[in-house]
């Protein structure tokens, strides 16, 4: 867990308080102006209530240019960021025709498949010519092509489970599968920092949802014991089943899940484990097989493994892998499989080719090179950042590294200054993170070369000095003092 230094917490709260106060004063003036001018709603309630978008109108709009920056090139290691300008104080942003080439430290491109690839793209274009961009039908009604069945077998083989089913979007995979597995009378225990799609799926299922503290197997055990002993709320009947939802890598913290302990606890208490490997499949593990390979967990211990193809394989879509009967049942009952348009065939071919490259079945060792490179890059970048004195989160080997900023004014400062020096970074603030813990998030890719990373480090170090986010300069000082003593 992140412990925020005392002084920083005070200054951050003060900044937010000031922004809040200003926002309220401006709202007051707005109300006065609107009172005098007539409104033409005529008996309808406003479509967006004032309280809901207070944060958006008064805080977010000031720094809107740091988010949603359009690019005019593929999301590779270097991107062309389109410049935007605003005439009305950031309320609307207009595109210009100018672009600036920046180092991309923000896209999820872990294995470097984002741009046109020499093995994948010709095959994708062939699939496009054969099957056209869409099948216009649900999987059960003429939307299944030979590519889909091939991909499902390949995914099952890659992940290490008997069977898999593929859906067109990662978000929908979670939202539509969890309700099919559990309903009213069941219990879902999910990690407190789970992704929004998992929370939506859990809510949509109708089961009771309980939360355990982030990545603490001991607290999970406590919650399990208490819940099994008590039973369903009010009736105290025993629960029908219990599913525990965890993620492989948490995208805002960059840390790996403590999978061996969690699966041990789940096995002991007969709960089912659901692992969401959206960020970890393809990026972690010696052969890219995800968090199970990295931490040495047998895939048979995890009941349902879910993942997406957006991050490491440069495509779109999600999959679920499990036992043969489970997949058959999901194909029969999951609404996303029965009603939603099936995954676009060129995207399917991209995943097939990318997995073949990673497994080395394309005849070269590019896959192994990519996997080694992303591990090297992540470890190098993280250790350098830590040496410079930044507060970096995340475990070793994880390609995601958030740098803590805390103060709301530092968010636009860091983002704009880095952009001026041609480095594109991503900011994460409320509501994606807790209010006081704003951060900049770096995503490393296998297509970054050593020079790119060194340039990125230089720029970040300079900007960090300017803004004052090097919260831990202790090691550096100690080494300097020790060096000076040795000289004397």
């Amino acid at each position, binding site marked *: 867990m992140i412990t925020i230094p005392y002084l920083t917490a005070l200054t951050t709260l003060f900044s937010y308080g000031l922004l809040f106060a200003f926002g309220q004063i401006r709202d007051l003036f707005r109300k006065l102006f609107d009172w005098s001018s007539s409104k033409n709603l005529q*008996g*309808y*309630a406003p*479509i*967006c209530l004032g309280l*809901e*978008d207070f944060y958006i109108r008064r805080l*977010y709009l000031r720094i809107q240019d740091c*988010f*949603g*920056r*359009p*690019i*005019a*090139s*593929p*999301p590779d290691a270097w*991107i062309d960021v389109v410049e935007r300008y605003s005439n009305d104080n950031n309320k609307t942003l207009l595109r210009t025709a100018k672009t600036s080439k920046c180092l991309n430290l923000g*896209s999820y491109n872990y294995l470097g498949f984002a*741009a*046109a690839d020499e093995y994948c*793209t010709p095959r*994708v*274009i062939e699939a496009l010519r*054969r*099957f*056209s*961009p869409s099948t*216009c039908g649900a999987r059960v*009604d*003429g939307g*299944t*092509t030979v590519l*889909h*069945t091939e991909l499902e077998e390949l995914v099952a083989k890659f992940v290490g489970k008997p069977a898999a089913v593929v859906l067109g*979007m990662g*978000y929908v995979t979670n*939202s539509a599968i969890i309700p*099919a*597995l559990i309903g009213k009378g069941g219990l879902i225990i999910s990690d407190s920092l789970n992704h929004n*799609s998992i929370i*939506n799926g859990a809510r*949509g299922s109708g089961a009771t949802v309980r939360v355990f503290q982030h990545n603490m197997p001991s607290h999970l055990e406590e919650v399990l014991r208490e819940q099994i*002993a008590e039973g369903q709320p009010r009736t105290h009947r*025993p*629960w*029908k089943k219990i599913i525990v939802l965890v993620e492989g890598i948490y995208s805002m913290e960059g840390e790996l899940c403590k999978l061996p302990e969690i699966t041990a606890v789940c096995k002991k208490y*007969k709960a089912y484990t659901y692992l969401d490997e959206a960020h970890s499949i393809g990026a972690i593990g010696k052969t890219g097989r995800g968090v199970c390979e990295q931490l040495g967990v047998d895939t048979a211990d995890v009941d349902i493994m879910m993942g997406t193809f*957006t991050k490491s394989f440069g*495509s*779109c879509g999600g999959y679920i892998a499990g036992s043969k009967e489970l997949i*058959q049942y999901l194909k*029969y*009952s999951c*609404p996303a499989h029965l*009603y939603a*348009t099936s995954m*676009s065939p*060129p995207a399917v071919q*991209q995943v097939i080719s990318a997995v073949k490259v990673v497994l080395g079945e394309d005849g070269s060792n590019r896959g192994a090179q990519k996997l080694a490179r992303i591990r090297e890059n992540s470890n190098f970048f993280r250790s350098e950042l830590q040496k410079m004195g930044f507060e970096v989160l995340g475990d070793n080997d994880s390609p995601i590294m958030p740098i803590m900023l805390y103060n709301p004014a530092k968010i636009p400062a860091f983002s704009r200054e880095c952009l001026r020096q041609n480095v594109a970074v991503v900011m994460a603030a409320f509501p994606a993170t807790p209010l006081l813990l704003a951060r900049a998030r770096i995503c490393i890719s296998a297509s970054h070369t050593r020079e790119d990373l060194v340039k990125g480090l230089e720029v970040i170090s300079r900007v960090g000095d300017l803004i004052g986010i090097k919260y831990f300069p202790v090691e550096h000082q100690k080494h300097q003092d020790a060096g000076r003593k040795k000289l004397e």
Partner: protein
Amino acid sequence: MTNSTLDWLELAFDAPLARAVVFGVHIGGHLVVEVLLVAVIIFLLFQKSYKPPKRPLTEKEIDELCEEWVPESLHPPITEKMQYETPILESAAGPHTVIDGKEVVNFASANYLGLVGHDKLIESCTTALEKYGVGSCGPRSFYGTIDAHLDCETRIAKFLGTPDSILYSYGISTIFSVIPAFCKKGDVVIADKGVHWGIQNGLYLSRSSVFYFEHNDMQSLQNILEKVTRENKRAKKLRRYIVVEAVYQNSGQIAPLDVIIRLKEKYRFRVVLDESNSFGVLGSSGRGLSEHFGVPIEKIDIITAAMGHALATDGGFCTGSVRVVDHQRLSSSGYVFSAALPPYLASSAITAIDVLEEHPSLLTKLQENVALLWKGLSDVPGLSVISNPLSPIVFLKLKKPAGSFEKDLRLLEDIVNHVLKEDCVLLASSKRSTLDKCSLPAGIRMFVSAGHSDSDLLKASEALKRAATYVLLNHN
């Protein structure tokens, strides 16, 4: 004897306070007794009531309970009906496709304008693939916004005549992200009973109070509007919506938009319209239901559509006033927390709209095809067509329902399989998920395309006639 004791007691009581006079009131001994009684009553009132002592479970007892507990299996046992084989296509899902090496006439893809396999689309996709690769590698706010997305949004808005639009990366997630962004707990939503699962899920996630009216029945809608407006008088902060589909996926009916707009203006509701199956189909230039009924598009508050139907690409969009679209960019979960649409699909959508604008004859061809199919299907034994004559989804249901949804579906699937095996025509039966709460009858769905030729339609109707006779005869 008693009198004297009483006198003696009185003396004893009065003695201490014999000369006490407070505020002109002579205090007697009985006041002392009364004060004591009041004190006792107050003391008793403040005592805690008797509760049986709580005994929390010991660790050993919890261990035993955990040992005893047996969970259900993760999925119910696999029955035979769960093991159906889906047809696997070996070529593009156009009007003709290849299954198992045989060429088959395809009525199961919602390819209304016949744009699957169109040269211009494939060309624009190829350029986009070579330029951008396949995926967009990030959500819209983190460098996932590629200029192809922004161009697509402006193109759609220009085509429909609205100020702005917003793109989603998957068709079904459009509606179940839009509804929770605008309907919160406490709001009132009135929806049709026959809406598809995406809308039902969106309504469930929004936690608002939902009322359903009978499928496509305007009288029922008016009754519910009347009832709801009468009950909820405090309408200042309440938002009220009517959710309908333009062409219903579960029955092929078309919602009468002019009546709905009249009702909405009378009762002050907002309309959310799902135009997935009518965008690019209805109206003289394909602009959808509003053009078909001659309603100005500003009167509909929120329009959503999935692009996996007429536009032959993937993804979805939502359009409306500037406020509506801007609000979704930060509060719609399927937009904020999910990766963006692959850029080649966005450029394919732009090309599809261009093709539609240049060739409005596709729309007339589609209408002719639907009319021809209706004529051919008018005398199929055992099945009747219940969809609207203008809808591109031709929906047939059993004349004599077999009793339950499963039995109906079994019969229809037999018919569909027979038609595929014997006559090489691919149809779709309306399978339903276990999570779907819709209660409309099962049926066979035929998606008519502008790319079907007259002979295709004739073949399909003949094949269906033969299969229906065969199967229903065997069943009886």
